[in-house]
């Protein structure tokens, strides 16, 4: 399975997280808070018939979150959940770089942004094979250009550098 499930056994090298019951209680509260926000917003929908389905879903979410919280009182409290982050610096670096990249795509274009984003992120993540880094970046971007622009004629954000 792709999902990580709460398990009392940790995989080798995996950092243990908080107690599973604590995590589930916090999650239940967060879900209820989010559902309440959407419940209030659902009240702003002008037609009553259009409110019906979202409100039914929100009632379902409240019920499930209630069960999630309730269940924690019937499960062993010593279980540990897997850690949410295995490397906070890498997570922060990657997410921040990706947000900057996405913002750059709209301003300088896909190819202009990608030609910097790909090798820089790979370098910051520890790749020191510079030739491979550059070669893969160029091959990848040429392949993207051929498939998306030449074959499928998909319009892309205007490039600042080449005016593609």
């Amino acid at each position, binding site marked *: *399975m*792709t*999902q*990580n*499930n709460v398990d009392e056994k940790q995989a080798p090298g995996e950092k243990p997280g908080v107690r599973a019951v604590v995590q589930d209680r916090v*999650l239940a509260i967060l*879900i209820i808070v989010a559902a309440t926000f*959407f419940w209030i917003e659902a009240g702003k*929908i*002008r*037609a009553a*018939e*259009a409110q*019906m*389905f*979202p409100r039914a*879903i*929100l009632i*379902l*979410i409240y019920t*499930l979150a209630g069960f*999630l919280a309730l269940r924690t009182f*019937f499960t062993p409290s010593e279980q540990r*959940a*897997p850690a*949410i*982050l*295995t*490397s906070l*610096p*890498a997570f922060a*670096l*990657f*997410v921040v770089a*990706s947000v900057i*990249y*996405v913002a750059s*795509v*709209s301003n300088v274009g*896909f190819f202009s942004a990608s030609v910097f*984003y*790909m090798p820089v992120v*790979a*370098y910051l*993540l*520890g*790749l020191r*094979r510079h030739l*491979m*880094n550059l070669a*893969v970046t160029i091959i*990848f971007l040429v392949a*993207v250009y051929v498939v*998306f622009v030449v*074959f*499928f004629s*998909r*319009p*892309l*954000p205007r490039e600042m550098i080449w005016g593609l």
Partner: protein
Amino acid sequence: MSMQDALLGAIVEIFAWQNLLAMIVGLIGGIIVGALPGLTATMGIAILIPLTFTMEPLVALGMVAGIYNGGIYGGAIPAILLGIPGTSSSIPTTFDGVPLARRGDAENALRVSAYSSAIGGIASGVALLILAPPLATVTLLFGPAEYFWVAAFGMCSIAVLLGDDALKGLVSAAIGLLIGTIGIDSVSGHERFTFDVFYLTGGFNFIVLLAGLYGIPPAINLAQAAATSALTSSGLTITRAKERFRNWRSLVPTWIRSSSIGIIVGVLPGVGGTMAAFLSYNEARRVDPDPTSFGKGSYKGIAAAECGNNADNASALIPTLTLGVPGNAVAAVIMGAFLVQGLQPGPGLFRSEPVLVYAFILQMIATAAMLFFLGGMIALRVFAPVLRLPPALIAPIVICLSVIGVYTIQNSIFDIFALLGFGILGYLLQATGFPLAPVVLGLILGPMAEQQLRLALIIARGDIVAVASSTVSLIIIGLIALVLLIPLIRFIRERLRARQNREA
């Protein structure tokens, strides 16, 4: 003209070199399109339609058949090699494809997926050829209420049976349903949860959610693994399988079961290949003597998912060809391909253009059969080297591919920000034990379920009891209740067992 005469004429037609070339080009193009996250068979065919104006009808339809079969199969390649499903119907392929690739059996996994896709596609084409008119009548028994319950059953069964935690699975499905309500209500025309943001009025495209949930979290995991050296490039390198998979006979029952599921699901409008793949996977796991092997690198898991989603391909065209009602998005686009050729799909088409219709059905079978050769070869020689790249490079490549794929759907910068948002949400959900597949299923089936429920209520003049009164509805409701009881029974049994252990 009798059916036999039409079939003979069709066989002669499809072996013309132009038609064969069109099928091969379409198939290869479809595999590439399906393998690229963000691009789908539907998009590939939609883009192809303007190019087919000047082609002979059968050449154009041959290319369409190739893209369709290739596009659905192509989704399995990144699902196995990168853990990113190229199409939503390949999501269950990741469950066993990723563990197999990680232990060096990607080559075998790709071969099993290609053969299973081919068998599913051929079975579906044969079903379309033989069973089209009688099977199409089955869907006539389904009204809006039944469709609503079918959607509810689909979501419940996936949420409950797919993961280890049914409760979190149901929460995930509810999150998907809620996301599906964002945008303009299709019945009343009122905005819902748009927060005065113009881009939200159209709602979220499910490919944005799909690419976000399935593209970004693996990239974040790869980035963290690269930084901590927990995952080296050698761990991702595809090596020639130590032992070539030869136990094809063990997959035969899975192929038969999954083909049957895919064909039946395909006939039901609006349900689609994603549901076929999930149901096939769950059924294979349920009947297997060792269900715990599923999700850990089971060939039967890959065979079930790929056979199931390809067995949906041709059968999904049954309502389109016989009733003129497209059962899903790709069928609607294929209907467009018929219309540009001046052909009106529906009951009259089998009478007015029998050779052409049968030739198209044979093209569906032929392109599925070509996957035996082209599917495996392309997957192994072209896409497998992707695994040789170090994770530090794969992570940004996945982000770039997802960004370009999502942007090209509707040329929206907002979509790529949404992609990143869904990606971070997906990572957090996954890290806290919530399965992602029910979120996607909730978004896909939610709008259909709501539309059918409201239609059913209008027909029943607001009487909610009437929505659940038909025999078919009651049977489906019974199945839903059964599915929902499973985790409760499991929980009580675990509690009793724990108590017995303590007392012992």
